[in-house]
């Protein structure tokens, strides 16, 4: 017989969890005591529970494993909600263990009590309240199973304190069967045959892929298939790295800040092969405008509810992406011929490419695009790039060419400012030798800045690329373009001296103000300060905007290009 708290730790060991991100408190004291008595599961003590969940989320995003966070009841839980919702919107597998007040206090407004299951319900894939110590192990097993299978997502397990003190036999099930949860894996063969037929007839095809390719580890199959087909490929923000960005068939990211060629190719395609993507509002713009063109859509996704949600789909294929892509390639081996008209389509795409829509003008100030280009060069394209949310996120997505999956770590769906720094911590726990660049802005970085302390404690050598324009850049851009330059609350006065701030936490700080200093500073940070956290405060052009841009409610081809202004 062992205690509930020991059962929790044993379960984590059985799941081969090597670290958890967390913060102790009253309701989880037994669990922390059990954690203390072993060394298989490491614990990373964050400075705010939100960061624990973001770090666990990035641990998942940057590896093929499930990230785990551990927090106490009440405020511990409410602080995690942003992180859980962030992971939920991007379908990130994660298990969040939360302490709860003793079960006999539940409902009595006890100290640090909150309705964890109720508060998190709308932003989890599933959640549990453990009511009996005998159910504890199987519940944790279920949590890992549910989080990591089907369309992945965060799962919360709420554990009352008395349960963690009770004694019970430990028996961890090897496998689990749930009559109510059996996600489909194999795609329907008839549908796959139909898809292959349509691909063969396509004259203006495009392969449009999203986060599903990354999550299902299908980058290899996708690349093989795209090469076999010789079709253009575009990625969503969440799909970057699913297809090598330096490949000649890659037309760039699409959507609100997508390239001219990607958005046009998507809009005018006669066949769209959508893979693990969901046609969201930031991708296709106005759905009525998008549906003006006649086209056939093949949609592969593990989640049936993503299919025909916003765009009518002709051939739905529900299944695990790599398995379905393998099936498609198997069928293609029986004599597949690409339509000869695809050659003309490529000519058209090359003409669109000729607009060079990511071109930007250098100025006396440091241009943010330039910093991203240099970051790419200096890191050889091999860094894990975590990002916050705003203009800098778009610049990173546009100018850092991701050739490998799981290297681009950002909050795509929820758009959570403040994730970048804790994401870097999660990446480093999953990939200890990685080069990690956190691309951020002076707005976002201050939303989880306290984690500089965690980074010091555990020696996380993150390179913070702070694109500092003294403005909440994306808000300012919209106000400039759509609110007659009324910059309501989008400028930040009394910014801290970031160099001193970094130094106060025991890190290296650099302030870079001239374009010619950008590259040397980056080189210095990534070589001389390889093992240090370096806070690089780039004072950039205060009015640089992100282009191309599809304004909200506009059609995908109604782009504003930098040259138009």
């Amino acid at each position, binding site marked *: 017989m062992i205690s509930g708290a020991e059962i929790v730790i044993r379960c984590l060991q059985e799941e081969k969890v090597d670290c958890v991100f967390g913060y102790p408190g009253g309701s989880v004291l037994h669990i922390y005591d059990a954690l203390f008595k072993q060394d298989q599961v490491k614990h990373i003590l964050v400075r705010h529970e939100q960061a624990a969940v973001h770090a666990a989320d990035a641990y998942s995003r940057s590896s093929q494993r499930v990230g785990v966070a551990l927090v106490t009841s009440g405020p511990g839980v409410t602080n995690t909600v942003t992180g859980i919702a962030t992971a939920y919107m991007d379908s990130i597998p994660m298990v969040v263990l939360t302490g709860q007040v003793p079960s006999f206090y539940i409902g009595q407004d006890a100290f640090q009590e909150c309705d964890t299951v109720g508060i998190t*319900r709308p932003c989890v*894939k*599933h959640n549990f309240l453990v009511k009996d110590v005998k159910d504890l192990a199987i519940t944790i097993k279920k949590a890992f199973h549910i989080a990591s299978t089907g369309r992945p997502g965060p799962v919360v397990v709420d554990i009352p304190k008395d349960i963690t003190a009770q004694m019970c036999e430990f028996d961890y099930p090897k496998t689990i069967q749930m*009559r*109510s949860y059996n996600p489909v894996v194999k795609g329907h063969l008839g549908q796959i045959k139909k898809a292959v037929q349509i691909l063969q007839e396509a004259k203006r095809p495009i392969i449009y892929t999203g986060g599903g390719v990354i999550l299902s580890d299908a980058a290899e199959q996708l690349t093989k298939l795209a090469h076999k087909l010789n079709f253009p490929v575009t990625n969503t923000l969440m799909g970057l790295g699913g297809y090598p960005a330096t490949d000649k068939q890659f037309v760039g990211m699409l959507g609100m800040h997508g390239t001219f060629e990607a958005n046009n190719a998507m809009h005018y395609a006669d066949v769209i092969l959508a893979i693990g993507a969901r046609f969201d509002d930031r991708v296709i713009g106005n759905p009525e405008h998008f549906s003006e063109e006649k086209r056939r859509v093949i949609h592969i996704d593990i*989640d*049936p*509810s993503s299919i*025909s949600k916003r765009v009518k789909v002709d051939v739905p294929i529900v299944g695990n992406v790599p398995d379905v892509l393998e099936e498609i390639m198997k069928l293609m081996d029986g004599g597949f011929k690409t339509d000869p008209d695809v050659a003309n389509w490529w000519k058209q795409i090359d003409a669109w490419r000729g607009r060079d829509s990511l071109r930007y003008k250098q100025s006396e100030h440091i241009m943010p695009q330039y910093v991203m280009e240099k970051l790419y060069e200096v890191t050889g394209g091999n860094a894990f790039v975590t990002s916050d949310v705003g203009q800098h996120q778009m610049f990173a997505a546009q100018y850092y060419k991701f050739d490998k999956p799981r290297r681009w770590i950002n909050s795509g769906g929820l758009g959570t400012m403040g994730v970048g720094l804790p994401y870097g911590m999660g990446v480093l726990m999953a990939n200890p030798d990685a080069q990690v660049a956190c691309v951020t802005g002076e707005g976002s970085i201050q939303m989880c800045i306290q984690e500089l302390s965690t980074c010091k404690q555990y020696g996380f050598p993150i390179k913070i690329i702070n694109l500092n324009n003294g403005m909440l850049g994306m808000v300012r851009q919209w106000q400039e373009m759509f609110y007659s330059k009324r910059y309501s609350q989008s400028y930040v006065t009394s910014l801290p001296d970031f160099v001193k701030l970094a130094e106060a936490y025991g890190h290296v700080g650099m302030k870079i103000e001239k374009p010619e200093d950008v590259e040397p500073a980056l080189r210095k940070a990534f070589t001389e300060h390889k093992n240090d956290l370096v806070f690089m405060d780039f004072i950039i052009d205060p009015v640089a905007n992100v282009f191309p841009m599809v304004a909200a409610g506009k059609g995908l081809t109604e782009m504003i290009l930098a040259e138009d202004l």
Partner: protein
Amino acid sequence: MQRHIISILIENESGALSRVAGLFSARGYNIESLTVAPTEDPSLSRMTILTSGSDEVLEQITKQLNKLVDVVKVVDLSEAAHVERELMLIKVRATGKDREEMKRMADIFRGRIIDVTESTFVIELTGASAKLDSFISALDAGLILETVRTGVCGIGRGDRILKV
């Protein structure tokens, strides 16, 4: 906008109802009525939801319901032959000449009087929702003291069976 009756088999666990109700409110779907109770297998509950929406919305409703981890099966009963019933208890003023009139109306609608006092009747009435509606409109509104309805429950005809 069409009327649909969705039947759900769901694990009989605490919170199951709020998962379903939360899904409907979060995604802006209608619930006109909802009934739930355990089935012959006490580990399973059966829920019946009366909703309305376009075909696209209904497709999303069934897909989203199926996505809930506790949901075992979902069927749109109104897609094929089915029977549906709703139970109503209605308390009416029954004094003087109204007493006989109420008794007569209950008989016409095949209702049963299940509680009698000097001045009131409670009438139990079962049927399709439209029948309950017409009973209410057949009564003098001033005499209705209280109504309570269970919401629709339904079952497929013949071999259409919803079971694990």
